[in-house]
């Protein structure tokens, strides 16, 4: 399910399946996308931040078009205790690899991988990012 911002329209609440993971996409070329994500975060229930949220920064291949300061994104990851992933949508290989990665994370968040919980995976990602 794709949404341009949160909160999701309440009319469809009863039809919506359970949400297992939220990926916030930030386009490095658009400062507005960061502002939009920051505003939308306010509508997310605290329980999601136990490993079910991640930030996906797109457009990293075009650093010369960068409108966002990286510190702001790292800070966001820290404040919300959620991993920050990077990808370049314009390259098919990266797109596919990133999609596979997100799918794997989703399986963990949905509880389909025995022995790995969203919380333990989230802290694994955070500690490897800090290395």
């Amino acid at each position, binding site marked *: 399910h794709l949404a341009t911002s949160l909160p999701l329209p309440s009319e469809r609440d009863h039809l919506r399946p359970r949400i297992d993971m939220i990926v916030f996409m930030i386009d490095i070329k658009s400062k507005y996308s960061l502002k939009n994500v920051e505003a939308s975060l306010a509508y997310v229930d605290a329980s999601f931040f136990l490993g079910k949220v991640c930030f996906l920064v797109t457009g990293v291949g075009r*650093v010369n078009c960068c409108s966002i300061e*990286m510190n702001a994104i790292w800070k966001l990851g820290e404040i919300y205790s959620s991993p920050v992933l990077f990808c370049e949508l314009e390259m098919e290989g990266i797109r596919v690899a990133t999609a596979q990665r997100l799918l794997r994370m989703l399986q963990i968040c949905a509880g389909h991988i025995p022995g790995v919980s969203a919380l333990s995976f989230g802290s694994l990602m955070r500690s490897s990012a800090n290395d």
Partner: protein
Amino acid sequence: VAPGLMSAMESVDGAVRTLPSIGRLSRGLLFGGVHGRVGLSPSSRLLPPAPPSQENVDSQKTTFLLRKQWTLYSVTPLYRFSDTHLKDYARLLSAFIAAEKQKGLAVEIGVELGIKVAISSLPDLRGSDRDQAAILVQLSSRSPASPKNSEEKVIWSGWFCSVSGDDFSENVPEDFTCLPLFLANGAESYTSIVGSWFQKTFDCCFRRLAISPLNLSWMAAMWTGCKVDKTASAMELVFSVPHLPQPLDISYAIHPEDAKALWDTVQKTPGEITQEEVDVFMDCLYSHFHRHFKIRLSATKLVKVSTAIASAHCDGIIKFLQSQYLTGVLMLLTELAISQIQ
């Protein structure tokens, strides 16, 4: 799970390294290790020092640098370059250009009779004594139409410089000279010939220096704060709107006094600017625009900034307008050039 993670990280990293060959995707500082932790850009910068009442940059000598469009390049350190051999270099470069012309590569029909090369040093263009003095290369010629003994006209200029690049030059081995910023004005064909000669002779590498919207907004903020004597020209920001069938540019002109007044309310510590202050300044300008035109400039790409001090374009083109702030602007450009090299 872990192996899947690693290969995805590598492929992103690999993408950042291989992207330059694909269209206009650019290599990044995003994953550079410059500031220790991956991906950090400076959160604050020192402001260029206010122009001294006595000019230590002799404005006479540098006037010819003003009001011209300079194309920016980053240059890796030059191997075995010596500023005592400038006349020899000029001679060698002149021979090289003549040879290239014979090969038919310098094509500008009916223009040159003979290209004269002059290489000189600009000792005042530097941040401190630890910087290498700037080196100026000028190509001049006499047009075939003018009389034999008439003045030669400068047809191309290029200069290497380093302002406050000492952090970088300190870490470079002995035989290397650091002049990371190169500025060129004149025909692209000459830039390419001169560039090739330097690359061949001093084993260095030139790359076009693009300026990201993020850095352009730093320039807008930094330059707005500068005091200008006479009536300043309006501050102008140009934005390009992506994803439209026909390209659309938005030009936003702001009265210089209003811009300065806004900046003065934002900036706290004199002599230093933080990323936060730049963000607040730009956000105010964007909200003002949104209130009037219902357009979100933050979703567009800032491509050009013009103030009374200088104007800069994201393709890496700069124009200096005030000689007293020349070194200040060069300091920021040197920093960008060094980031691109590392």
